[in-house]
């Protein structure tokens, strides 16, 4: 992570590494996303892999029908052979965020709910991608699809507007149904980002998510969890109510913290393992961490991927 280490906050102090709880209070998603991303982009200004559309990838032999404009004349001058310059990525791609808006996302123990965090993250990613002139789309789902904004270069405002309106209300069910339905819609290759708290069996999650990769889409899964869900830092014996099902049960946190944490860790480990098996990027996000962290992780992961290819 020399990347992260090399770039200390410089350009817009205060915008970067902002406490998500503070950002959540701003309210205006566009403002928030800009505040985060501007600083972010400035900070990454000299990153060698930034801007995929102009990235040189390799040479290949000229075949009749190739555009002569892409001929590498310098190579011809040296070797007297025709070579075509190939570039890394398509300059503009479809970028769609799939946001879980089930009731369980509406939980936050430290001033910001997972939903708000995910919303800001979505806004930031969308903003970032929009600056690259990529097409942005957005899908909100719980047990079925709630909102669908198809990817388009002009949909940035729509996405932010929809995001602004969204409220988690209904309990989420199986992810499989809405995601499988959506998988058919992403015909063109692009990047899909799934943001959810993934309260389901790891196998069921992987089963639900993998179809999204089928048409060559890059898939990134952000697993958003509140710190309380990770460390179970309750002390008093109380009744706990499930946000989705409404079930209640008495809980003595001190007595079961160890078991709970180990179960969550096992869950995360299982997800990590299974997603890496199916070549899906998986990232666990803690809502107490600044948003930049998530963005770095995303981009660093993308960069690594690109280099490998």
């Amino acid at each position: 992570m020399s990347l992260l280490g090399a770039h200390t906050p410089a350009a817009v102090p205060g915008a970067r590494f902002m406490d998500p709880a503070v950002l959540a209070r701003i309210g205006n998603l566009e403002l928030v996303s800009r505040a985060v991303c501007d600083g972010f982009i400035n900070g990454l200004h000299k990153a060698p892999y930034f801007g995929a559309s102009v990235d040189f990838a390799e040479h290949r032999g000229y075949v009749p029908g190739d555009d002569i404009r892409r001929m590498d004349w310098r190579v011809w001058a040296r070797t007297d052979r025709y070579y075509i310059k190939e570039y890394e990525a398509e300059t503009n791609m479809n970028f769609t965020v799939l946001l879980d808006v089930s009731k369980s996302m509406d939980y936050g123990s430290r001033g910001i709910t997972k939903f708000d965090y995910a919303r800001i993250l979505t806004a930031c990613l969308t903003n970032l991608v929009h600056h690259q002139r990529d097409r942005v789309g957005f899908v909100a789902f719980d047990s079925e699809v709630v909102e669908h904004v198809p990817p388009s270069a002009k949909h940035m405002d729509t996405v932010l507007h929809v995001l602004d309106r969204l409220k988690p209300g209904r309990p989420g069910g199986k992810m499989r149904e809405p995601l499988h339905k959506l998988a058919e819609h992403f015909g063109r290759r692009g990047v899909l980002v799934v943001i959810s708290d993934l309260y389901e069996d790891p196998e069921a999650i992987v089963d639900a998510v993998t179809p999204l990769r089928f048409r060559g889409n890059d898939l990134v899964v952000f697993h958003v969890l509140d710190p309380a869900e990770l460390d179970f830092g309750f002390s008093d014996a109380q009744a706990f109510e499930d946000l989705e099902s409404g079930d209640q049960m008495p809980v003595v946190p001190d007595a079961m913290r160890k078991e709970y944490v180990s179960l969550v860790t096992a869950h995360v480990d299982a997800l990590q393992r299974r997603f890496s098996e199916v070549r899906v990027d998986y990232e666990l996000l803690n809502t107490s961490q600044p948003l930049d962290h998530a963005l770095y992780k995303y981009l660093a992961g993308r960069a690594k991927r690109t280099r490998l290819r």
Partner: protein
Amino acid sequence: MSFIAPLFFVALAALAIPVLIHLIQREKKQIIRFPSLMFVQRVPYKSIQRRRVHNWLLLLVRMAALALIVLAFARPFFLGQDLGAVAGAGAREVVILLDQSYSLGYADRWERAQAAASEAVDGLGPADRGSVVLFSSGAEIALRSVAAGERQRLRAAIDVAETTAGATRFAPALKVAGSILADSALPRREVILISDFQRGGWRGEEGASLPEGATVTPVPIAGGADAPNVAVNAVSLARSTFSNQERVAVSAVVVNRSAEPLAGGQLALEIDGRSIQTEALDVAAGSSASVTFAPVTIAGRFLRGSVRATPDALDADNVFHFVVSPVVPVQVVVVDRGGTGSAALYLTRALAIGDAPRFETTVRQPDALSDADLRGASVVVINDVAVSAALGRRLARFVESGGGLLVALGPRAAWPQGVDILPAALRERVDRTRDDAARIGALEYGHSVFEPFRAPRSGDFSAARIYGYRAVETDPSAQILARFDAGAPALLERQVGAGRVLLWTSTLDLSWSDLPLKPVFLPFIHQAARQLSAYAESPPWLTVGQVMDASFGESTLSLGGAVVLTPSGRQVPLDEEGADVLELSESGFYELRTGESDSVATVVASNVDSVESDLTAMDPQDIVAAATAGAGEGARSAAAGGAPPPEAQEQSQRLWWYLLCFGIVLLGADTLISNRMSKA
């Protein structure tokens, strides 16, 4: 330690509040909404369900704070020895009162009482002084005001002590303790009262109060009351005569005062130390049984009988002693003119009736009265006869040596000049036949002759009509026991030498009065004869604590070198010069032996006090309150003089202040702890 306001302990119920807060209140907080219970539900259920106290430290701190505050409000103060710990200054004068009544012999109570006394001795500080007073019905100072350095002597006095046959009486012991404390110059005075606190030992006696500033620490020796305890409470003796021999049927009442029934026990009748009859004995708990033995012939004087029950936890009250002797009749000689005109009919008939005592009457004419008659007689009745000078002198000797003389006056009565034993000089007859007859007016009911008639409706002397009587000139040494309505003496008494003389100024037949026809005549004659013969029925037994005097039983005993043999075999000489009484201190038979012949003069049966066998305990605080009531007043009056006791009292009560402070400090600590915890 005691409390001034123990009612505040009700507030200890508030201790439940922290517990409830810790256990229940937390559960009732608002429900925590959690994204998903997916993992929570996977954790084994039992560890979730179990409710328990989370923070023992916090709970304990809170409870301790509450308890301390309640304790402070109850105003604890120290008594007795504990006072020393608080006050810390001032040497003590400690009087250890050790109950040695026979009820302490129940189970292991005596050993525990001794241990408690030794403990009290050990509690003496270096500057203290200690006394040991042993008490039962009386109190005895075993050691008086010994320095604490001589603990060994105190301990030895306690170890040597044994239970006696006496009953518990607290008042004498407290008085003795009071006198020891009053003599002490030490600033603090304390009485340690070690007893089984039987209810029977305290009658709310006044005057048993201790000097000012003195405290009483009761040490109750109780417990072990589950063993059966029977007591032979009383014996009744029914005399009868069978073929000229006197017999006595003994009935014994056995009381079981414990909560355990006694079954399969035995009750034996012992005569002169030999068991002659045994009856089975079953007594239910808290009740009594009566056992009657077959009659026993009274073979001779001082038949010693004992009724003995099977041994139990308290042995001393299982035996009951008594002494029976054949009835000795009172010999009465009636001196009468005899013949057909005998006036002695009513008198002799009246004396022939009755058993206790029995009178054996001999009628003699004045000239036939022999010296032998006088020697054998206890009482001589001169019934309206003229007494010659010689007879008069003989009668005077008889009276001076202890005999009794009753002189009834009539028309013939005359008394020789020069023999001055009559209570009055005889004068002329007063004739009341013409007007109203005379009545007997004023009676000296305080005198033993008329004592039985004292109560209302127990004999009406005024019903008798007296038609004639002799006027008399009263001797200054005589006492007028009855008067006629006109004021003239009717009955006079005079003490002459060892005997006494009664003078009845009318006749004892119908010639001058109709008194012999009245119901009061017979008891009057009997009482007069009893009085003259100094008859005293010897009781078949006495109780420990009563005194036996040398005249017991036999009035004519010569005391030269008399010795009393106690049941334990000790010989106690009876001093002629005054200390001729002996307090009974043991249960059994006391023998009084006269010096010259070493013959048994009398035998007295001594029994333990049956009240003592009732082991019901009383509240020692009654005694403490009564004994220190005066002390409290004294302390108050002494407060102006700046005496130390009030300071010590204040000192002993100051504990509440510390308790309250500590309780508040704990509450502060509780706040700190809970703040820290809620931050964590």
